[in-house]
């Protein structure tokens, strides 16, 4: 349940942004979630509901999952990795992680 800490951190960042970017209500949060970020989106939504502040009372949480990129250990093809034990679609060999997948990033907010 480290999702609770992360959801609290999201609320803290949005509260801070409400001062610097001058808004009083959040309608939507667009969050990018890397495929290897160790975060369960269900647990994250559950945790977010538990820590909402009045600013975020009606906010819709849009979670966009982002894959990591990897390279096939057999044929060398590059492809998306949705989990760490992904196999190459072309030759079936295991994929080696090359980049990304760890982001848990607030991209933008829809506010008023």
């Amino acid at each position, binding site marked *: *349940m*480290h999702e*609770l*800490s*992360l959801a609290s*951190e*999201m609320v803290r*960042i*949005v509260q801070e*942004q409400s001062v610097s*970017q001058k*808004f009083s209500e959040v*309608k939507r949060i667009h969050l990018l979630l890397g495929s*290897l*970020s*160790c*975060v369960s989106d269900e647990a994250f939504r559950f945790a977010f509901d538990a820590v909402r502040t009045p600013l975020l009372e009606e906010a819709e949480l849009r979670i966009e999952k982002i894959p990591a990129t990897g390279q096939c250990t057999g044929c060398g093809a590059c492809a998306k990795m949705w*989990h*760490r*034990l992904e196999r190459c679609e072309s030759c079936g060999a*295991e994929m*080696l*992680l090359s980049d990304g997948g*760890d*982001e*848990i*990033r*607030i*991209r*933008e*907010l*829809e*506010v*008023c």
Partner: protein
Amino acid sequence: MCGTCGCGQPDSKQDHEHRHGHQHEHQHEHHHHGETESRRVSVEMDLLDQNRAYASKNRGYFNQHHIFTLNMVSSPGSGKTTLLVAMIRALVDRVEVNVIEGDQQTSLDAERISEAGARAHQINTGQMCHLDAHMVGHALEVLAPADNAFLVIENVGNLICPAAFDLGEQLRAVLLSVTEGEDKPLKYPDMFASASVVVINKCDLLPYLDFDLHRCRENIRRINSDAEIVELSATTGAGMDAWLQWLNGERDRFTTTATEQDVEA
């Protein structure tokens, strides 16, 4: 732009001439957009940015004071505290050993650690399932390790949550005991992927278990091709010398690098 009445759209129905041959002033109510209209604001901040900043601060402190730091993680019951006690007994005559203990409740582990001869500080995480870099920073203020000390952070027993939280450590040791099953690295890949070293503990029990050590190593390698793999029994002491020798080598390497940085600075 209002999507329901089409106001503001050129050549729309409102810009009209009625068939009955005269124009009349067009009257309809316009919406007051200003008060409720939403806008998009860009944020582009990662939820772990702040933890990374605290971890970087801790790392700077460790480098400055030549404090070699090991973050120990595992599932509950794999033998972190037993291994730690054995390590302290072997090291305490040569170096000051400090331990930050993370547990949900009680100071039982800190008491065991203190009895073995280390300086210990217990963090009761309460509801939290992991330690973060901010908590460790505060623990350092209380513990105040000496320069050149050895610091071990015994994380909360959990193979999922602590994986994402860098504490500023030099090495992350993931413990796996042979009573847990050789497929654990595949079941909890994020933690094993983050390991600098995997310690396979309780190896004295191998004769009594259906645990395939070779397959366990293969599973670790599938997730992490770089991590050192160490086999030992903290209870009997088998494999402890090799583990401590490896650890000392890593510590020497860290101290040399930190000293070079001092000279450059």
